[in-house]
């Protein structure tokens, strides 16, 4: 089976052929059309048969749209609010106000960098305690002004480092969980890329939890699981398959509410289309939950998390 990179190369070649054809009037149009059809078929096959590990790679694809791309496409007037008021301003986790369909919302979003420089600044999307505490400030802000909260999740996980531990990263995540479960406004979380462990969950407790088709959400990375459980870092494909971290699995397991379809080849193949599908879904969900009295909403949210888990009951 062809992999994505090969197909991308083929796509580029077809494009070159088209250019050549146009310039030099070679009249290759029917051959080009046939090639395109073949490409489409191969892609459909590829994505139908894509392994979970392939999907993880797609979720991490360097061309994949990041939070600011979606913010740009779906919202207007994004007004970033910086700083945790305690010690820092984490660039891996953004907070701000925006308008969504004209309505003010609070946005919390994990943001990866495109360039090495940007990634250095954004810690590859791995937030530190100051990021999670900035998010908590944004939540309190949302509550004060009754703005719904939309969070966009895209992180390999919380930043694991000495400074993080010194600033109580575990405590910061824990406090966010507690805050979000009781937040007196409608909340939606969307995993747009990687939903990495506690670092994702710390902005992911919400009334609705959505996933993009090629996003993943997992307690641990396949690499981490391979290293810890299989004692072999190379067994990531097996680990990925077993972790059930892709959208179809998560939907089956009933831990997410909806999967937003992506174009063939992934969100980066058509950013606008992806954003537009996500926006439609967000609007629908937001309308639903905004219509509920807040006590009822809090109760549903509580029940959702209170009841999560799989175990069976025996005779005591």
């Amino acid at each position, binding site marked *: 089976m062809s992999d994505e990179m090969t197909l991308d190369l083929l796509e580029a070649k077809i494009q070159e052929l088209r250019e050549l054809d146009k310039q030099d009037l070679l009249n290759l149009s029917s051959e080009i059309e046939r090639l395109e059809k073949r490409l489409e078929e191969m892609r459909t096959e590829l994505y139908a048969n894509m392994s979970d590990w392939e999907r993880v790679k797609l979720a991490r694809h360097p061309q994949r749209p990041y939070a600011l791309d979606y913010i740009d496409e779906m919202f207007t007037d994004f007004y970033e609010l910086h700083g945790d008021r305690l010690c820092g301003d984490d660039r891996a986790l953004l907070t701000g106000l925006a308008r969504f369909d004209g309505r003010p919302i609070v946005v919390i979003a994990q943001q990866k960098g495109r360039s090495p420089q940007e990634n250095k600044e954004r810690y590859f999307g791995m937030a530190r305690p100051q990021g999670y505490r900035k998010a908590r400030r944004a939540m309190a802000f949302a509550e004060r002004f009754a703005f719904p909260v939309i969070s966009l999740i895209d992180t390999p996980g*919380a930043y*694991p*480092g*000495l400074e*993080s*531990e*010194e*600033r*109580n*990263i*575990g*405590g910061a*995540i*824990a*406090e966010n*969980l*507690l805050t*979000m*479960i*009781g937040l007196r406004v409608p909340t939606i979380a969307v995993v747009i890329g990687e939903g990495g*462990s*506690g670092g994702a*969950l*710390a902005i992911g*407790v919400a009334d609705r939890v959505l996933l993009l088709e090629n996003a993943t*959400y*997992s*307690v*641990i990375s396949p690499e*981490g*699981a391979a*290293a*810890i*459980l*299989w*004692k072999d870092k190379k067994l990531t494909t097996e680990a990925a398959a*077993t*972790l*059930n*971290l892709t959208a179809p699995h*998560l939907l089956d*397991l009933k*831990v997410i509410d909806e999967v937003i379809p992506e174009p063939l080849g992934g969100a980066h193949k058509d950013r606008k289309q992806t954003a537009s599908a996500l926006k439609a879904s967000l609007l629908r969900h937001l309308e639903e939950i905004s219509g509920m009295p807040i006590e009822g909403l809090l109760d549903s949210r*509580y029940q959702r*998390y*209170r009841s*999560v*888990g*799989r*175990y*069976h*009951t*025996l*005779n*005591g």
Partner: protein
Amino acid sequence: MPIFKDKHYFRVNLEREPDENLWMTCKACGELVFKQRVRESDNICPHCGEYFFLTAKERIESLIDERSFVDISQPIVAEDPLSFVDSKPYPQRIEEAQEATGLAGAIIIGSAVISSIPVVLGVMDFRFIGGSMGSVMGEQICHGMEEAIGRRSPFVLVSSSGGARIQEGIFSLLQMAKTAAVRGRLAAERLPFISVMTYPTSGGVQASIASLGDVIIAERGAMIGFAGRRVIQNTIAEELPKDYQTDLFALEHGLIDRVVKREDLRAELGNVLGFFVEGR
């Protein structure tokens, strides 16, 4: 003794089988010590002061007023929602852990009395798949807090866990939110939650319920933190200080309230719980 294979759930009680070996050798000092003596002194070597590892039962015994413990856990056992297989299938791993420990899961929930104060107590057992938190532990902790609410009594949780139960995937992750949710109810009821962190309290447990105590007490020698030394060194190749994630590191950086010697922990709990009990 495949006690859980037939899907039976046994209550924990603290009565012990008579032990054939009356003596043991301390790994730290090499001395031959009388087991009964070790047991009576909270599993601390009477010779050199080394802390021996505590099972959940031993931990409970070391904290509570004698014969005050009643297992009130839910009669639940783990499922295998992901049909998870690594070096062995997850159900087999569970069964082996059950057989090795005589426990249904990695935590025991009970009612008990500590310094004459009735409490609901949860104690993790690190031997049970690293004390990891899956659906069963999450549910048991929540059940414990709800029991505390029902009884209007404090909740005490003794953690000893490597973090999430990877084999339960996303369900394991979500136990962090689940336990935090019920912890919120406990707070709304103004009932105290004392979190005791022992060696180790890390990963998803440290990043959720264990860090949400009204008072957080670490046992001396506890390891406390989110990301292990190896994870950090693999991810970002950062130099880590010697005291990384030690009890004193946690104290110095404000993560916890106190560090307490094992032999003082029982009295410490009595002290702090006393503040929340009318007329003491």
